[in-house]
C-alpha cells in the first residue's frame, strides 16, 4: 500500500471543548503531511474508530494558516468518506484531497476539525439532586492513523479543574484543567493507546431530540420562523426526590447539574417573538435587542434535570429584505440552517421552507449534504397550496449553522391572488343578497298565505295613503288656526277668509281622494282587522274638521261684529276644549294605525 510510505509529522491537539459545548467533543487536529514515498500523492486518509465515527457530526479540513496572519476566509478542503481496501473493518475512513499533489519530500499542513456528539458518558448514570455530574471521555493517546507518525501529542481540555481520574501514561502532565499526553515520537501506523478521563461537568447537556424549523416567506414583507423543540437533558439521569426547597435555597449545589435557561441569538430586527408550548404561553423569557443581534433568553417551565424532557415552540418574524435577494430573475432566500440556540445539539433537524403559493423552479444550495424532498402546505386562503422544501439532517451541531439558499421563481402578480379572491367573494355575497332581496322566491304563487301576504301589502300601502291624507287635513286645520292667530294680531279679516276658502277647497279635494281608498279597504278581506280603526279615524277627523270650521266661523264672525277679544275667547273656549280632545284622539289613532 503506497500510503504507508507516507511519513507524517503531526501535532495533534484534541480538545474536549466542553466549555462551549455540552454534549460535544470538539477535536481539532493540526497535521503536517510529508510525502516520504516516491510517488505523487494527493489524497490523505483520516481514520476514526467505529465508536467515534458513529458520533461524528461534523468534519472539516482546512489548510493551515500561519499564526498571526489575518484569517482569510479559509477554503475547506474537500472531505469524502473513503473505503480503501486492506484496512481494518473497525475503522471508518475519510479522505482529504490536498490542493496539489505532494511530491516526495514535500510537506503540507492542514487542520482537521471534527465534532462528536454524545461522546461523553455520564458515570454514574443516575445521580440525585445534590450530586455533581461526572462524565467519562475515552480516546486514544496515540493518534490513530494508517500512516506512521513522527511526533504527536494530545491535550485534553476540561471545563473544570476537578478531575475524578484519568489514565496515566508516560509523559502525562496536568495543568489546571488541561491534561497533556506526549509528545510521542515515531509511532507506527495504527498505534492505539486508550485513555479515559473521568471529570466533573455541570454544563447544560441540552439535546434537542427533534427540532422542526418552519420558515415561511411572505412577499408582503415578512419571513416567519417557527421552531418546535423537543428537548431533553442528556446528562446523568436524576433519581430520588426533587426538592424545590433545596433547589431554591442553593441552586448551585442542589441542582448543579440542571440547566435553567437557554439563550437564542436571533437575527437583528427580529420581531413578534413568542415562546409557548401546547398549553399556552410561557412567561419566563427575556428579549434584548440591538442592531447586531436579538438575544432571547428562555427558561423552560421547570429547571431541567438529567433525563427530564420538555417541549416548546419559539417563533419570530424577520424583515423580508434582510433575507430575500434576487439574482438572474430568480429570487433566493439566504438564511441560517440550524437553530439559533447556543450550546444545543440536535439529533434530528427538519427545516421546512414554505414558499409563497405559485413559486416554481425550486432548488436548494447547502454547504453540506442534507436529505431533501418537497411537500405542499395549505395555509390561509390557498387554493393549490404552497410549495414546501423539506431538508432533513441528523446530528446537527452549531458548526452547521451556516447559511443556505433556496432559489425559486415567483411572479409579483401572484401576490394579488388572495386579496382579489376576497374582494370577489364579498362582491358575490353582496350581489347574492341583493338578488335575494329583490327576487320573489315563493314556491307557490297561488297559495293562500302568499296571496294574503300580497293583499296585506296592498292594504298597508292604502292605509299609508289614508294616513297621509289625514295628516294633510290636520295640516290644513293648523293653517286655519294660524290664520286665526294672524287675525287676532293684524285684524285682517279678508286674509283670514281667503285662508278659509283655500282650506275648504283643499279639504274637499282630500275627502274626494279618501273615498276610493276607503272603498278599497272595505272590499279587501285582509283589511278587516284595521278597518274599524281607519273608519273611526276618518270619522273623528271629519268631526274635527267640522269643529274647526265652526270655531273659525265663530271667531271671524266675532271680529266682523267687532266684539272684544275676550268675548270671542269666551265663545270659543268650549269649542277649543273639544278640539284639543279630538285632536288628541286623532293623533292616538294615527299612531295606533302606524304601529300596525
Amino acid at each position, binding site marked *: 500500500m503506497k500510503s504507508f510510505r507516507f511519513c507524517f509529522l503531526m501535532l495533534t491537539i484534541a480538545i474536549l471543548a466542553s466549555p462551549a459545548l455540552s454534549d460535544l467533543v470538539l477535536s481539532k487536529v493540526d497535521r503536517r503531511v510529508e510525502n516520504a514515498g516516491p510517488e505523487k500523492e494527493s489524497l490523505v486518509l483520516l481514520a476514526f474508530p467505529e465508536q467515534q465515527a458513529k458520533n461524528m457530526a461534523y468534519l472539516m479540513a482546512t489548510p493551515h494558516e500561519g499564526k498571526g496572519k489575518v484569517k482569510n476566509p479559509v477554503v475547506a478542503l474537500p472531505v469524502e468518506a473513503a473505503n480503501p481496501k486492506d484496512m481494518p473493518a473497525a475503522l471508518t475512513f475519510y479522505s482529504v484531497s490536498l490542493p496539489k499533489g505532494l511530491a516526495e519530500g514535500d510537506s503540507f499542513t492542514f487542520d482537521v476539525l471534527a465534532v462528536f456528539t454524545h461522546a461523553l458518558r455520564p458515570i454514574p448514570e443516575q445521580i440525585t439532586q445534590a450530586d455533581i455530574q461526572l462524565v467519562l471521555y475515552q480516546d486514544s493517546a496515540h493518534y490513530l492513523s494508517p500512516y506512521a507518525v513522527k511526533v504527536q501529542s494530545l491535550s485534553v481540555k476540561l471545563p473544570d479543574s476537578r478531575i475524578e481520574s484519568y489514565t496515566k501514561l508516560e509523559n502525562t502532565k496536568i495543568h489546571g484543567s488541561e491534561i497533556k499526553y506526549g509528545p510521542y515520537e515515531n509511532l507506527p501506523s495504527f498505534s492505539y493507546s486508550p485513555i479515559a478521563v473521568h471529570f466533573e461537568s455541570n454544563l447544560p447537556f441540552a439535546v434537542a431530540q427533534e427540532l422542526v424549523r418552519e420558515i415561511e416567506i411572505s412577499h408582503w414583507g415578512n419571513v416567519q420562523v417557527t421552531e418546535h423543540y423537543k428537548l431533553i437533558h442528556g446528562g446523568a439521569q436524576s433519581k430520588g426526590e*426533587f426538592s424545590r426547597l433545596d433547589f431554591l435555597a442553593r441552586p448551585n449545589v442542589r441542582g448543579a447539574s440542571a440547566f435553567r435557561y437557554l439563550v437564542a441569538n436571533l437575527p437583528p430586527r427580529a420581531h413578534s417573538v413568542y415562546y409557548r408550548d401546547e398549553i399556552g404561553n410561557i412567561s419566563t423569557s427575556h428579549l434584548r435587542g440591538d442592531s447586531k443581534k436579538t438575544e432571547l433568553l428562555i427558561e423552560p417551565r421547570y429547571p431541567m434535570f438529567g433525563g427530564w424532557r420538555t417541549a416548546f415552540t419559539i417563533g419570530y418574524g424577520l424583515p423580508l429584505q434582510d433575507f430575500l435577494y434576487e439574482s438572474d430573475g430568480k429570487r433566493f432566500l439566504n438564511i441560517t440552517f440550524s437553530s439559533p440556540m447556543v450550546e444545543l445539539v440536535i439529533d434530528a433537524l427538519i427545516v421546512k421552507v414554505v414558499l409563497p403559493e405559485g413559486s416554481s423552479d425550486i432548488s436548494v444550495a447547502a454547504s453540506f449534504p442534507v436529505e431533501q424532498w418537497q411537500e405542499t402546505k395549505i395555509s390561509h386562503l390557498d387554493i393549490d397550496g404552497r410549495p414546501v422544501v423539506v431538508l432533513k439532517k441528523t446530528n446537527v451541531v452549531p458548526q452547521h449553522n451556516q447559511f443556505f439558499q433556496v432559489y425559486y421563481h415567483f411572479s409579483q402578480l401572484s401576490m394579488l391572488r388572495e386579496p382579489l379572491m376576497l374582494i370577489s367573494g364579498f362582491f358575490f355575497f353582496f350581489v347574492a343578497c341583493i338578488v335575494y332581496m329583490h327576487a320573489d322566491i315563493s314556491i307557490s304563487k297561488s297559495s293562500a298565505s302568499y296571496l294574503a301576504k300580497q293583499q296585506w301589502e296592498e292594504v298597508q300601502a292604502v292605509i299609508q295613503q289614508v294616513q297621509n291624507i289625514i*295628516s294633510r287635513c290636520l295640516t290644513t286645520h293648523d293653517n286655519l288656526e294660524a290664520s286665526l292667530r294672524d287675525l287676532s294680531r293684524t285684524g285682517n279679516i279678508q286674509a283670514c277668509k281667503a285662508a278659509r276658502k283655500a282650506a275648504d277647497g283643499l279639504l274637499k279635494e282630500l275627502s274626494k281622494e279618501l273615498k276610493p281608498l276607503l272603498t278599497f279597504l272595505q272590499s279587501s278581506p285582509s283589511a278587516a282587522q284595521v278597518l274599524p280603526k281607519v273608519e273611526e279615524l276618518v270619522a273623528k277627523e271629519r268631526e274635527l274638521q267640522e269643529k274647526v270650521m265652526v270655531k273659525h266661523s265663530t271667531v271671524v264672525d266675532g271680529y266682523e261684529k267687532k266684539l272684544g277679544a275676550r268675548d270671542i275667547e269666551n265663545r270659543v273656549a268650549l269649542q277649543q276644549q273639544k278640539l284639543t280632545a279630538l285632536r288628541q284622539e286623532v293623533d292616538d289613532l294615527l299612531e295606533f294605525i302606524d304601529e300596525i
Partner: protein
Amino acid sequence: MAAPETSTAAVPTLYTNNTLRNAFGGVLSFFILLLIGVMAFSIRLFSVIKYESVIHEFDPYFNYRVTQFLAKNGIYEFWNWFDDRTWYPLGRVIGGTVYPGLTLTAGTIWWLLNSLNIPLSVETVCVFTAPIFSAFASWATYLLTKEVKGTGAGLTAAALLAMVPSYISRSVAGSYDNEAVAIFALIFTFYLYIKTLNTGSLFYATLNSISYFYMVCSWGGYTFIINLIPMHVLLCIVTGRFSSRLYIAYAPLVVLGTLLAALVPVVGFNAVMTSEHFASFLVFIIIHVVAFVYYIKGILSPKMFKVAVTLVVSVGLAVCCAVIAVLIALVASSPTKGWSGRSLSLLDPTYASKYIPIIASVSEHQPPTWPSYFMDINVLAFLVPAGIIACFLPLSDASSFVVLYIATSVYFSGVMVRLMLVLAPAACITSGIALSQAFDVFTGSIKFQLSGASSNTEVDAAETSSSTAESQTDAVKTEKPEETAKNRPSRKSKKKEREHGEKPSTKAKAEKKRLLALPLESSVISLLLLVLLGAFYVVHCVWAAAEAYSAPSIVLTSRSHDGLHVFDDFREAYAWLRHNTDVDDKVASWWDYGYQTTAMANRTVIVDNNTWNNTHIATVGTAMSSPERAAWEIFHSLDVKYVLVVFGGLVGYPSDDINKFLWMVRIGGGVFPHIKEPDYLRDGQYRIDSQATPTMLNCLMYKLSYYRFVETDGKGFDRVRQTEIGKKYFKLTHFEEAFTTHHWMVRIYKLKPPKNRIRGKTKKSKSKTSSTTSSPKRGGTKKKNPWQ
C-alpha cells in the same frame, strides 16, 4: 339629504318620506345591533389582552379536550368515545354522558374554517366561541324583547345583555363552557316561542322545536325551558287567554321537542321518564282538554254545552284522578322521586347540604349573597321592578311570559349562584323594557311641553307646519339635517332626545297623552338621572369584564411595588407531568384538578370534575384524610403512581386543597364511615395550627401540603390560614417528593414502591388499619394489599 328636506317642505311627498323614515330606522337599528354585537364580542376580549389566548378554569379544559378529539377523529368516533384516561379504572363513556352542543358547535366552526383554508387551531376556535355566541345572544335578546315591547325596548335590552357582568363571567374569551352557547339557545328558544305565540305560524313552531333541541344538546339547563313554557301556557289558560296561537306554540314544541331531545344520548329516555319533564306532559294534556272544550263550545248550543260540561267534568275528573294516582305511585317508587340531585336542590335548597355533599361542595352551587346580585346584575336589580310594571301596561301573552320568566329565575338564582346566569337575560329584558318606557314617557312629555309652550307663546308663521313636521321627525331616528327650516321646536326636542337618548332605543313616539305628560324640569332631570344610571352600569360592566372576570385562573398574577408577578405554577406542574412521567401513569388528586390533568398533562386521573361516581370520589377523599400508610394502600390499590396536591400556604393562594379539605372528609365520610368529620375539628373549628387534632396533623393531605414547609422560613407560617402550622418536622415514609413548582402551589409526590416497607412495621399497623378500614373493605377487594 334631499328626502328629509322635502319632508318638511312639501306635503305630497309624505308617503315616500314615511317609507324612507322606516328604512332609515331599519338601517339605523341594523347598525346599532351590529355595534352591540361588536361590543359584546370585544368586551370579552380583556382576558386575551391582559393574559393570553388560553382556555380558562376547569370544565372548559374538558370541553376543549373533547373538541380536540372531535376535530381529530370525527363525529362517529366521538359518539363512541370511551375515555380511559379518566375515572380510572372505570373509565367514562364521553359520547353518551356529555352535552354535545358546545363541542359540536366549535367543531363545526373549526371544520368550516379549515375547509375554507383558514387554518385556525382548535384552541383558537374554542377560545373565541363564547364571545361570538354572546353577540348572538344579544341579538336574540333584541328579537325577543322586540316581540314583547317593540324595537326600542329590544335595542335597550340587547345593549344591556351585551355587557351584563353575570353573563360576561361565563363567556369571556377562553371560558369555553356549555353556558356560553346555552344562553344564546335559551333566549332564542324563548324568542321563537313568543314569535309563534304572536303569529301562530307553524313554521316558527318548528323552528322553536329545533332551537329547543339545540338547547338540549348544549346544557342541562334546558329543563328550565321545558318547565317555564308549560307554566306560561297554564297561566294563559287560567287567565282565559287560550287561543289557537297558544296551541300552535305549545303542542308542536312538546311533541317534536321531546322526540328531538330523546335523540341526545345524554338525555335519551330521561326526556320522558324523569320528573323534570312531567310538567310539560301534564300541560300538554290540559291544553288538549281545553282546546277540545273550546271546540265543543263552538259546535254546541249553550244549553247542550252545559250538559256536556257536567258529563265531561265528571268523567274527566275520574280519569285524571286515576292518571295522577298512577303517576304519583310511579314517582314515589323511585328513591329520589324521579328528580336528579341538582334539580331537587333547586326545589329544596337544603337538600344538597343534607344528602349530597358533592353537590354542596361546589362553590357555584351555593346560594348567592346579596353583594353578588349587585356585582352580577348591578343597576338592573333596581330597574327590574319597573320593567315588571311596564309589562303589565298592557299585559299581553308575550309580556306575561317575561313576567313569569323573571319571577322564576329570581327564585332559582336565589338557590344557586350559578343560575344567576339564567336571571341575567330576564333582568336585561325587563330592564330594557323599563328603560325604554321611561325614556318614552320623559322624552314624550318634554316634547309635549315644548311644543305646547311654543304654540302658546310664539306666534310665528313657521309654527304652522311645526306640528306636522314634528309628527314626522319624532319617530325619525336618523340624523336629519338641522338646517331644514321651520321646525325649530321639534328640533329642540330632537336635540334633547339626542342628548339624553344615548341608549339607541329611545324611539320617541309622539305620546302626547295629557295624563302622562310630566313637568318639563322633572322629566329633564329624570332623564339625566337615567342616563347617569346607565353610565354607572357601563362603567361597572367594563370594570367587571376587565378586572373581576377575565382571569383565566390557571395563571395568577399579583401586583406589587416591583411590578407584576406571574404565578404559572399549575401549567408548570402539568407540563412536568406531561413530559417527565410515563404515558400510562395514574395521577391522583382532588377532583377539581381532574379535567386539567387529563387535558394539560395528558395523564390518567382517578376522579375528575364530572363527579358522576360519588363512591370513587369518596375513595380519594378517604385516602387524602387517612394517615400516610392507609392512604398509600388505597392509592396503591388504584394503581396510582403520583399524587398531586395544591398548596397555597407559601404565596397565599386561598383556594388550595387544605381549604377544601373538609369537603374531602365529608364526602369520604359519607361513604366510608370510619372517616369522621369531628376527628378533624377542634371544638367545631377547622384548624391546622398546634391546636389541631392529631388526626388532622397525621392525615395525608396535611403531610403532603406541609412537607418540609417549615424549612422555608424556619417557622412554617401559612399565609392563607395566617397561622403557624401545627406539626413542623416530619418525614414521609410512603411517598417521596417528585416535583414542586416554583411557588409551591402544586406539589407532586410519587408513591414509593412497596418493597421499601419495613416488615416489622407492617405487622403492627396491619391490625390497626384493618380495624379502621373495615367498612371500605366491604366494597370488595379494592383495598386489599397484595403485599400483605
